[in-house]
């Protein structure tokens, strides 16, 4: 299989790249929603990110991506006794594409019925949630996904565990993954409940700058002509991003948030009338991740200003008669906050 298009070679779409990197640094953020036109490199970016991230350790043949040091009881491979355990291997960060027409059984896993009927065995067939453990779950056209699947995914993403209780099976296994959804808003809206669960939301637009468009075409063409050569050329840039993510992952839990910043974050959310604490909490986590990515140990206000639109945009109460969208409202609130702060 050819290696995916390198992350560092993606032209423009800075917001999307930043959001994905933040989610890679801090999986607790709760996933990224990318809404926008077709052909803007959404799936390319996600595939590229999975390739770029450091490989994860697991055991050969494990279908639940267990940590070698912490085998799950559900996994017959890793929980095997003593010497029969398979060898440790390093695999690429899993990246699972959830197709639109997928069935519930395929997502959460189920009794392997054919096996049960043909071979008379009762076996659990792990689903895509198991495969996505410790990696990414990418849903293209998330706004067209069937509701019952959406509920399932949200539940697993929020709890980090997939519980299957059906057909005489009782299985629970870890399903910690970064949910990445994409879609075109013209083809249908998302339920607000679903919107709120995504930690970050970015809007991508087709690049309309002619020079940049041409650069995209040239790079894509160079990649397709000689994938290996192109990837090799970009290795340095990729390594730089990888090491910054690895470094950020190490320090992200220790990044400090000064009280003044926390206070202003609350003010911002109150001013925008955001329901619930999820907005503030995500703002805090994303702020930490952003500071960690920049190699700093303290969050400053510019971090927050930078990420506020992607954290808060989709949480604002929608006004059906409002033409302008939500981003300007956040900018206004930020500006007002700055002015107020100046006075105090």
């Amino acid at each position, binding site marked *: *299989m050819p290696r995916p298009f390198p992350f560092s070679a993606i032209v423009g779409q800075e917001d999307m790249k930043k959001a994905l990197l933040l989610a890679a640094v801090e999986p607790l953020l709760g996933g990224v929603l990318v809404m926008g*036109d*077709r*052909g*803007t*490199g959404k*799936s390319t970016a996600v*595939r590229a990110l999975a390739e770029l991230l450091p490989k994860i350790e697991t055991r050969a*043949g494990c*279908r639940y991506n267990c940590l070698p040091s912490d085998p799950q009881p559900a996994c017959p491979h890793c929980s095997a006794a003593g010497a029969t355990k398979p060898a440790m291997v390093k*695999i690429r960060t899993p990246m699972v594409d959830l*197709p*639109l*027409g*997928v*069935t*519930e*059984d*395929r997502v959460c896993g*189920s*009794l392997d*019925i*054919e*096996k*049960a*009927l*043909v*071979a*008379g065995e009762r076996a659990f*067939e*792990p*689903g895509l949630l198991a*495969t996505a453990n410790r990696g990414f779950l990418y849903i*293209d*056209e998330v706004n*067209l996904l*069937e*509701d*019952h699947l959406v509920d399932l995914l949200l539940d697993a993403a929020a709890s980090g565990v997939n519980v299957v209780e059906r*057909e005489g099976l009782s299985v629970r296994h870890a399903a910690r993954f970064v949910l990445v959804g994409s879609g075109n*808003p*013209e*083809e*249908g*809206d*998302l*339920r607000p409940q679903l919107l709120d669960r995504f930690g970050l939301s970015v809007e991508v637009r*087709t690049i*309309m700058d*002619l020079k940049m*468009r*041409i650069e*995209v*075409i040239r790079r*894509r*063409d160079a990649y397709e*002509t000689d994938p290996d050569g192109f990837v090799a050329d970009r290795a340095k840039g990729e390594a730089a991003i990888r090491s910054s993510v690895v470094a950020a992952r190490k320090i992200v839990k220790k990044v400090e948030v000064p009280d003044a910043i926390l206070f202003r974050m609350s003010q911002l959310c109150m001013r925008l009338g955001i329901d619930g604490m999820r907005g503030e909490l995500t703002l805090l986590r994303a702020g930490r991740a952003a500071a960690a990515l920049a190699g700093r140990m303290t969050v400053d206000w510019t971090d927050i200003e930078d990420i506020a639109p992607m954290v808060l945009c989709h949480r604002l109460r*929608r006004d*059906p*008669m409002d033409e302008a969208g939500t981003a300007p409202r956040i900018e206004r609130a930020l500006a007002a906050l700055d002015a107020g702060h100046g006075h105090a």
Partner: protein
Amino acid sequence: MAMHEADKDDICTSMRRQSQERWHLALMAARILAVGGADIGGLWLTARASGMRDGFLAHLRSLIPSGPSVRLPPGSTAASLGGRLDIARSLADSRLVWDSGILATAHGGILIIPMAERLEPSAAAVIAEAMDTHVCPGRRPGMEMMGGRIPCRFTIIALDEAANPEEALPTALADRLGLHVTLDGVALVSSMLAAPPPTPCADWRSVGIADNVLEPLGAIAAAAGYRSLRTLHHLSRVARIHAAIAGRGEAMAEDAVAALRLCLCLEPPQVQPKPEQQAAPPPSPSPDNNAAGPAPQDADAGAEQALDSLTELLAAVEQGRVDGLSLASGERAARQGRKTGKGGAAARNTRRGRPFAASSSPPFPDARPDLVETVRAAIPWQRLRARLQGGADGTARLLIRKEDFRYRRRRHEQPSTAIFVVDASGSTALERLGETKGAIEHLLAECYIRRDEVSLIAFRGKAAEILMPPTRSLVSAKRRLSALPGGGPTPLASGLERGLEMALSTRRRGSTPIVVVMTDGSGNIALDGTADRALAGRQTERIARLYREHGLTSICIDIARRPRDSVTNLAGMLGAELHLLRQADAARMSQIVRTTMQKGQP
């Protein structure tokens, strides 16, 4: 009289010329596809099933002799594309047997998708994934992790037989196909001309394309409404392949023009082809080759001129003077904007919902068997089967055969579609339309709960117009409703006709239509646009009765200042609920419609 004949002749020649040009274009597309293959995704062929289409496909096949040619069976699903368990063989062999999947068998060859406009969006998503990754999407459980990646790289030929604008290729697929050819308007005579034998061509990858060609190409595509970068990517490749076929080492402006014609069906403005016309008498080789002819001789001057032609084309596209825009591609853009990709699937598809029965045939191709029902069906036969197999009577294993499999069938509530048919004539039109717009936005703001859709048809002047096809997106509704025309006479019959058409097509897609007719009087314009009140009345009556015959749920809202008999009569003919609204106000209107939507459920 003689003048008349001459005119006719002119039309004939121009039609013949157009037919021949299209055919040559199709042949050129075939050559480019043969050279480019999977690198340009594939070919979108708009044509009805016919001998001509078969002839074209056979010609295409002769250009790509190697590799398999797989025809996608209709009703293919994600599972059959990626490979699935072969139950019959597994039972016979007593071990799990997987079939390899259609996509894997097409590796290195052509995948033909007949009736591509009917392709399930989920199947299209699987194909698109395979096109992007060149790996067979593993639907086989566990394959992702076992390193069993099956390479899969193929060229797609999507046969689009769409008859009306609501049917369209799934956008995920349409976006990935580089070439778009239409055989509509090609006369059989032109297609019988022998295709020129293919000449060997240099490696197109060594053909460069300069920024001063690529830039206008990108600008033209963007101006024509193709903002996807995939389109530009395809354009640049097709231009390079076109240059390689013509034996050039660098893609020139004429290659770019050809690429625009081949990929986007953009026809250069009619002022241009004067010189081409002289140079291309009918039985000559393709006009593209002809246009390419003079380039090598005086390359510099030619290039200058040709670049001008690109600039002119850009200006023409921006002013909307270009042919293809109004025909194929305008439609294509409109389709792309509209299609939700899910339309029919929601209702036909019984993958979700409450189970209500078991059946011995799968309700959809990759349905899962129902374990309990299957075992129940197999149990009565156990002793007999054990004896037939010659084993002991009490074997531990169940003996199950293919005919025992039972599948769970599910059903779920159908979504509704509210179709507003609004009288936009007369003086109160603007206000009324404004309030209707408000009602639509109210409904849409809540419709995600039930996945309902809303649509708007307005009638005024000579005929009715679909202002908004069924949608559940607030975003697109706002954009489409931003400008609403009003005023003029009342073509009620035409409005009702459009409403009926849309209601029936909505029903075919599996949704329950509700037609909301808002008018304040009788129509005075007949279906053909003439001001004949009597005829219009008869036509209105006939169409209104059709509503009743088809059992459509409808609501009639009288928005005249005083209640009128004509509206009451109309409601009677439609079999509609009648409501009187002196002022059509958005909140009341949306409430009435919502109540009907909820009780209209089966």
